[in-house]
């Protein structure tokens, strides 16, 4: 089945191009998401020094955990890229395999993030504690929610691939999911360098 797709491979490839009408629309949606995240970054930068006597970044962040988290998400972009390579080769089972690898890395990232949240809240630094913590949970949590949504989307696409095979509409959806997933990676790099790095580097002085 993987070697003999039920659809013309050229149509599948054409549907996965980034400049088709529907994929162009998805770019436009991503632009709106960029603005949404910029508002949350704005909130974080603005509130990042407002501790209200509560914990500071140095008290709650650990670079070790965030490093693993970051590597997992970066690796997931690579696996998704490989899924798209398989798409262009028309290998359905390879796509499913790479998607599952992406999902595993995404789940690891999310699990790590949630356990970090739980840990911070247990230390008495919940989002109700200060403006800084509200902004931290708001920004990182929104990114996490996006990843969670992406995982649901990956599961849906795996199911569609398994049931319907590599059809042009599915290839088109995979192209959008790919844009979405890489976008989340990009946002995470900004989160890492806006939230965690300065937070820990400035740790000593605050």
């Amino acid at each position, binding site marked *: 089945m993987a070697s003999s797709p039920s659809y013309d491979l050229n149509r599948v490839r054409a549907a996965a191009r980034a400049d088709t*009408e529907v994929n162009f629309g998805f770019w436009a949606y991503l*632009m*709106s998401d960029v603005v949404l995240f910029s508002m949350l970054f704005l*909130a974080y930068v603005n509130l990042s020094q*407002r501790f209200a006597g509560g914990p500071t970044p140095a008290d709650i962040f650990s670079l070790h955990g965030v490093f693993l988290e970051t590597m997992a998400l970066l690796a997931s972009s690579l696996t998704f890229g490989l899924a798209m390579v398989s798409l262009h080769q028309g290998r359905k089972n390879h796509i499913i395999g790479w998607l599952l690898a992406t999902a595993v890395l995404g789940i690891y990232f999310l699990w790590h993030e949630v356990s970090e949240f739980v840990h911070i809240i247990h230390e008495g630094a919940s*989002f109700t504690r200060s403006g*800084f913590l509200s902004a931290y949970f*708001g920004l990182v949590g929104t990114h996490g929610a996006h990843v969670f949504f992406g995982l649901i989307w990956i599961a849906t696409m795996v199911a569609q691939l398994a049931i319907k095979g590599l059809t042009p509409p599915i290839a088109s959806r995979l192209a959008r999911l790919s844009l979405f997933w890489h976008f989340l990676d990009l946002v995470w790099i900004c989160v890492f360098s806006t939230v965690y790095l300065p937070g820990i580097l400035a740790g000593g002085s605050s």
Partner: protein
Amino acid sequence: MFGKLTLDALYHYNPIIVFANVLMIGTGILVVGLLTYYRKWGYLYREWFTTVDHKKIGVIYIFIALIFLLRGFIDAAMVRGQQATVGAGGEGYLSAAHFAELFTGHGTMMIFFMAMPFLVGLMNIAIPLQIGARDVSFPLLNAVSVWLTAAAGALVMISLLIGSFSEAGWSGYTPFSGLEHSPGPGVDYWIWALQISGISTTLTGVNFVTTILKKRAPGMTLMRMPMFTWTVLCTSILIVVSFPALTAALALLALDRSVGTHFFTSIMGGDQMMYINMFWLWGHPEVYILVLPAFGIFSEVVTTYCNKRLFGYTSMVWATMAIAFLSFGVWVHHFYTMGQDPLRNSIFGIATMVIAIPTGVKIYDWIWTMFRGRIEYKLPMLWTLGFLITFVMGGMSGVLLAIPGADYKMHNSLFLVAHFHNVLIPGTMFGLLAGFYYWWPKVFGFRLDEKWGRHSFWGWLVGFYVAFVPLYMLGIMGMPRRMVTYDNPTWQFWLVIAAIGAIIVAYGIFAMFMQIYVSWRDREKNADLTGDPWGGRTLEWAIPSPPPEYNFAVVPEVRDRDAFMEMKVNNRAYERPAKYEDIHMPKSTPLPIVVAALSFFFGFAYVWHIWWLAGLCVLGTVAAVIARSFNDETEFVIPASEVQADEDAFHARLKQADVFTHIDGIQEFGDERTPAGAFVEPTTRATSGAPS
């Protein structure tokens, strides 16, 4: 089980609200009863609730807008009535809380549920037709948008019955809109009504950016797009880039109120000014989102009824783009007095004044288009002239307010209220009403009555001046906005005059509904057989009124800016192909109303903290969307034979109306080009000159 919702929410200790509820429920029961009696539910479901046709979606949007025009106007009239009758030091017939709900409701409804749906409705009706497309890029998403707007409107409506509405003003400034100062459900209703309608608008923006950039007929380059299409493109870009700021601000405010975060609180490290910045980061572009498409409508109207090409098309395009760009650099002028340093205020003051330049360019373009044109004083021309004169006045008072020093005197006064009504009523409302009359025959196949339309125009125009010039005076006399009572007896005289103005506007609104009724009654007499009732210049007039579901039997080929005029002049209008082809169109689907209903219940559940219901609604929405994504059979085919039959009937009507004997006589005139040999491809023109 029901969160904070108890039977208490149904008690209203206010006879006016009880009366309004009786009226609302009574109307609801009457409508449901009539629909059941006449067995219209099936028809409604098939033709309207599940439709993905952009023309019908446009009609639904405008239907919603008209309902909220009435509600928003009643709120305004009650505010005017209170201030006119209260007298110095009096109590008046409204409580302070009720008064605050009224001015909040008026602003919220007029912006989000009147102006925006009206505008998006006209966009839906006109844009695909103007660019020669068979539908928007994402018809299903379009239907989701319209029903989300309806769901958000329903939240505003239900707040009248269950609980109360926000008292924090339409902009909902923190910390007043925070939990500490507004513990009731009002602000939550306001948040979720705006949130749902804002998401709907973002989706519309995405949809129209894609539609306009990707779905134009062959030959329609960017600089050949009709002016309305250009302005809608700019507005859609503004929507995509600015509405998420509102989404974020409202989401964070909702978190502050429901889970106790400190984004905008005045304690524990929150920053209330951050809300105000975020709100106006959206709010100022929103002003141009509302006004740019109206500018586009005026451009269409002026060219059509002056029978001339638009003067300075290129300058108009650049002016539109400039306004769209500048609109992101002026938001601080909404709060000069809130503690920035003078340098910052000066920068934003200058940026604000700069916007007057491209706007002035537009005004002159319209005037020069009229100059030596053959002006037909049809109703839309009246709206346009009323707009030009009134809007310039409002713009000038805006330039006054842009001076930070002057603003320190004027801010939060009725001068400000008069100013923004003076730009939004002519700038948006008059444009919407002009577009309403202009495109009505295209949608329904008959023209609107001219006489009642003129009554409506004079009601609005005279009423506007009588209602708002006194507010300018009162502002200069020092009266703040949003006063339930006051102690200066000299103010009352002007407030009475303003209230009389509101009554005159009421006549204008009444006349508009009479206009619709009378035109519907005489629809046979006013029928538009040719699809081109005004001697139109753009592609929407090349097809029958009302257009078939697929709009264009054959996708037209565009050779000039005024595409249809070029076809008429060069004798290629109404050309028929040798053979028609099958047309694929998207199927109707109930998904949009399901998603909208779930959003409504989600909003309601969040307002009352009924968390299990909110969770179910989210799950339901995700499940519905996933289920839909498994369905690849989303299109149906209109066979060529049916298209051919439609076209035969259309051409029979054209013959009956004698179109073909007159079409030879159609000529272009004006100052931009000579009639003879006028329509040369720009590229040909460029290359025919000597290579230099």
